[in-house]
């Protein structure tokens, strides 16, 4: 059985307005998403900005209350639990945030931050607290002097390491990494990614790795879920991604990545057209407005997410 199974997850943000502050509409951030993650695997989630990746990740650990759907973790249903009943899962599931600048409390030193977390969950006996803090700091590749510094004294990459240390402090088995490197310089990205992969290997973690860069996902993940406007359009294994990709959006994403080999005769499709607004979803396929192979039917009807061979799933009428 998979460690994490998400079924038909929906998140709509109400939009309030008018004189009486009534709900006048909804942002359809996540629209019925289902997937599962096997223990020890890394599942990538890819999609362009605003497609609902962060919302999905935060719903999974209930930092955002989902509108509908169900989620089982290790066989237990999480969406039915009250917040205080979630406590055991808080230790098992952690998250690394997208923005290293807003994800650290500016008033806490690294040591104070880790100490609060460790002491709250009584991870280690009181007398071992300091030793454990230094161990964590070393584990994420920071110098011991970092312990007494405040967040503003660090660079973005170092801050992200602190965020990783905070997640690791609880010794979780499952970590959601929400674009952990997208706010960092390219030169730093590789360092932080390598650190994460080392930790994943050493600690036997299961990861939900969110990114907008299919190249990174392809490199690190076992499977990838491609999202568009809050829908899953394709799910496939990362082996031979280029050969297997079927959905026109996935192909476009692959094409949009810079290719190392200039002789590679791949079709660099540049997408035309606008992304529909999540406020007002289209009737048919969400990708129809930009799809290079769109047919009349696509605008009228929503293609279902159908299982192909080897567990690959695609939501498209056109491709076979």
């Amino acid at each position, binding site marked *: 059985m998979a460690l994490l199974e998400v079924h038909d997850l929906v998140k709509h943000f109400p939009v309030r307005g008018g004189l009486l502050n009534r709900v006048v509409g909804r942002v359809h951030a996540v629209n019925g998403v289902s997937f599962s993650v096997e223990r020890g695997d890394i599942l990538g989630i890819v999609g362009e900005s605003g497609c609902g990746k962060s919302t999905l990740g*935060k719903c999974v*650990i209930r*930092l955002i209350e989902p509108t509908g759907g169900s989620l089982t973790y290790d066989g237990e249903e999480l969406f039915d639990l009250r917040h205080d009943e*979630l*406590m055991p899962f*808080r*230790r098992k*599931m*952690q*998250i690394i*945030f*997208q*923005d290293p600048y*807003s*994800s*650290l*409390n*500016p*008033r806490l030193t690294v040591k104070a931050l880790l100490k*609060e*977390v460790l002491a*709250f*969950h009584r991870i280690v006996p009181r007398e071992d607290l300091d030793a454990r803090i230094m161990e964590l700091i070393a584990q994420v590749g920071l110098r011991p002097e970092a312990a007494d510094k*405040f967040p503003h004294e660090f660079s973005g990459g170092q801050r992200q390491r602190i*965020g990783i240390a*905070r997640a690791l402090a*609880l010794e979780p088995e499952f970590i959601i990494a929400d674009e952990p490197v997208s706010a960092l310089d390219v030169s730093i990205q590789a360092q932080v990614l390598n650190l994460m992969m080392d930790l994943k290997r050493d600690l036997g973690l299961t990861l939900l790795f969110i990114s907008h860069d299919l190249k990174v996902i392809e490199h690190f993940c076992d499977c990838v879920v491609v999202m568009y406007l809050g829908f899953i359009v394709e799910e496939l294994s990362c082996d031979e991604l280029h050969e297997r990709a079927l959905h026109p959006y996935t192909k476009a994403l692959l094409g949009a990545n810079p290719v190392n080999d200039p002789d590679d005769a791949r079709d660099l499709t540049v997408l035309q057209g606008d992304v529909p607004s999540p406020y007002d979803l289209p009737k048919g396929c969400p990708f129809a407005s930009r799809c290079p192979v769109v047919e009349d039917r696509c605008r009228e009807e929503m293609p279902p997410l159908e299982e192909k061979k080897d567990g690959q799933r695609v939501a498209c009428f056109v491709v076979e």
Partner: protein
Amino acid sequence: MMRRFFRSRGVRKLVRDRLAMVALGVISIYLALFFMMWCGFLVEKEETFERVGANTEVGFFEEPTIEQRLLYLEFYLDNLYSAADSRTPEASLAAIDLYGRLPTLTDPDAVIERIDPLWEVYDELVELYEDDAFSDDPESLPRLEELEAEAATLYTEPEGLMGRLALALGTDRQGRSIFLRALYSIKIAVQIGLVCALISVAIGTILGGAAAFFGGVVDHVIVWLYSTFSAIPYIVLLMVLAAMFLGSAFEGTLVPVYTAFCMTFWIAPCRVIRGEVMKLRELEYVQAATAVGFGRGRILLKHIIPNTTHLMFINFSLLFIGAIKAEVILSFLNLGVKNEPSWGVMIKQATQEVISGFFWQIGAATVFMFVLVLAFNVLSDALQDAFDPKHV
């Protein structure tokens, strides 16, 4: 923690600001005076009601007119005579202790003997003055000076520094020292400022923080509360509250003033903190704290509120001067400070003196207040510049 605070960017920026440092110096002097009086040094409450001289004596820096000099002389000679007549200066002066300037009564009979010719000279001079012939006679001015010097020898020197300064800014219509009253008013002003600003900022922070953080019904109730309170004209609310305390055990104390101010002043910090907390609670470090499993109270108190301290500082500083200025208005309406001098009380009393051209009381109260308010205004601006995260 403290060391880090003093080395922080905000504090370094504040220290570089010359004007702010001057303002801080001025405020420190006021605070020092406040603490000394609070501990019972310098001036005590009773001393501000004692007669220290003739009525509406002018301060050291103004030359009194002939008429004023004659009036003062009459007061001092009269005072001297009744003291000698009753033979015990302490008893006769029980009502009018001239701040330690007792008549020298080693031998009362000899004193009475010496006063009699002084009275005669005095009467002659008054006659001259009333006939408008004072300036015509070149002898009269030296005679007046001689008389003053003579009268002065019959009094002991004033006691201590306060005794010497008691007449520095003159006296009011009841012969009370304007300097001592203005000085004592620092205690009242700072006390009102501190108490009201502290309580208001505390209430505002708690309510504003709770409203923004918990949202929903809590937010609605608190927003409704402050919208309602701010819709009532503030002076009217003050008057109603002050009137409500009439006849209660707190009448005549500062409690009505504190209550009235705190009920209106918490609104400003509440609004600001609510806005800030709304912004902060969406930040990812708050979500991270939730992901760790911290309770909502802990997140609010330990992770959100401490990040609003710069706003608390600025609001405290603004409310402090706000309270001092509002006290003046309230006292002017006879609803404020009772049984004690305050700048508001002084300004109110001075209205009658101003009509007759006597400006010492209103001048002293205004200047004492102005310097403090100005210093705090300068400091608030500097605080805003130094600690606002958008400026650093």
